[in-house]
């Protein structure tokens, strides 16, 4: 090639143009709606190829990872949380509220008295790593049925005690995932109370989605008909802050 910049310069130029072109294109409304459409197609395919209640894989005890890594918030940086932690979370309450007939406020003892589900599942982080742990807790469906979900309900929002880089953590799922049999409120990991780094005293398990959906340091479960007026309106902390996909099954 007899270009004055030379082949390597030429290729690097093409590459830079292409990459910056992609970055610019990605900012347009068309690209944004394509991205969210593609996400929706994946979700539809996942839900039509397998039963909506189909279970994520459960493993034997021997498959449990030697350690369960904590990621994101590893504690809640408030005096109230530290005091609660020191007292074994005797004063912790989990509220069930929003579009329900009977709002609930439950202690850890109340939650442990409900029918329990124990599942050994693989946790997949959006970054790429995986760890296997045994989780125990009541199914979210038990709580929702007890509270009586109203017909207008479309989403379940998980409110958290932790603040990460200056913002309150929260997450949300639709009613299909909310009523999935493996969607539990875990109070135990590997037969022990949930460690601080993994979300003590309560965290969600949403086994058919990536780790950022599994809200930790859980304080309330809110049934809503729209996500628009919650946080930044995109249905979760990472969705609002950096544009992560709301459907995290991919």
């Amino acid at each position, binding site marked *: 090639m007899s270009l004055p910049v030379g082949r390597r310069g030429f290729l*690097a130029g093409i*590459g*830079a143009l*292409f*990459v*910056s072109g*992609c*970055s610019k294109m*990605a900012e347009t409304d068309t690209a944004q709606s*394509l*991205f969210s459409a*593609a*996400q929706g*197609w*994946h*979700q539809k*395919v*996942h839900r039509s*190829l*397998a*039963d909506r209640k*189909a*279970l*994520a*894989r459960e*493993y034997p005890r021997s*498959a449990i*990872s030697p350690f369960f*890594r904590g990621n994101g918030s590893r504690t809640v940086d408030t005096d109230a949380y530290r005091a609660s932690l020191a007292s074994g979370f005797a004063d912790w309450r989990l509220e069930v509220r929003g579009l329900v007939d009977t709002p609930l406020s439950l202690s850890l003892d109340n939650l442990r008295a409900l029918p329990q589900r124990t599942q050994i599942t*693989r946790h*997949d*982080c*959006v*970054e*790429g*790593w*995986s*760890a*296997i742990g045994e989780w125990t807790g009541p199914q979210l469906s038990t709580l929702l049925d007890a509270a009586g979900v109203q017909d207008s309900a479309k989403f379940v929002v998980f409110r958290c005690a932790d603040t990460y880089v200056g913002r309150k953590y929260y997450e949300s799922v639709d009613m299909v995932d909310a009523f999935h049999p493996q969607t539990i409120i875990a109070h135990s990991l590997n037969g022990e109370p949930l460690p601080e780094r993994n979300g003590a005293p309560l965290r969600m398990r949403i*086994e*058919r*989605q*990536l780790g950022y959906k599994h809200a930790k340091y859980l304080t309330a479960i809110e049934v809503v008909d729209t996500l628009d007026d919650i946080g930044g309106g995109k249905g979760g902390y*990472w969705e609002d802050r*950096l*544009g*992560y*996909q709301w*459907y*995290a*099954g*991919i």
Partner: protein
Amino acid sequence: MKKHALSTRIWHWLNLVCLVILFMSGLNISNAHPYLYWGEWGFSPSQAWLEVPRFPGWMTIPDYYSLAKARDWHVLMAWPFALGLLFMWVAMLANGHFWRDLRTAPREWRPKAVWHDVVEHLKLNFEHGPAKYNFLQKLAYGLVLGVFLPGMVFTGLAISPGFEPAAPWLVDLFGGRQSARSLHFLFAFGLFGFLVVHVVLVLLNKPWSLMRDMITGGSNRWGDKS
């Protein structure tokens, strides 16, 4: 009859665009956790079989670190990539391209024949076989179309926790989720290697007429040769 069927030409260029965007957004995704593991789980460098180097911005989409935006591109382009590959397989089985040009005969696998083909390639003589493609070309195209490209799709599906309940056997087939992730990476670099060799050989051979033929279809000169 044209040298390249219209279906082949459309797929070839569509697939190039998909592969480039998927590869470059994939490098951005790799930067999020540049460690690869075997088996079902793995989360710390001490368990990794490979620490992947960090890819600089000019190699990635977008051109700065953003796992969320890279995933947007990756998740979008997976569609035309996978459906395009399905289309190409249906087209080349239906129009005879696979049976006529890509399928190898047992005699082509004889060591002597393979050696002859390697020597001719090293002499940069690419049109030495009786058929449209010689053995090494068939082998390369066969590996790409039959193993690496579908391998990308299937390992990609296997790392998706939402897809897994539909086909848990797929994850087992690859030896666990982290193995599937490692293979996804290896297949990607296999394809990158193919792309480099493919482009170099085109440049060494007849770059302009080969490029032109893959756009316009060209005339079937291979028919005259036999």
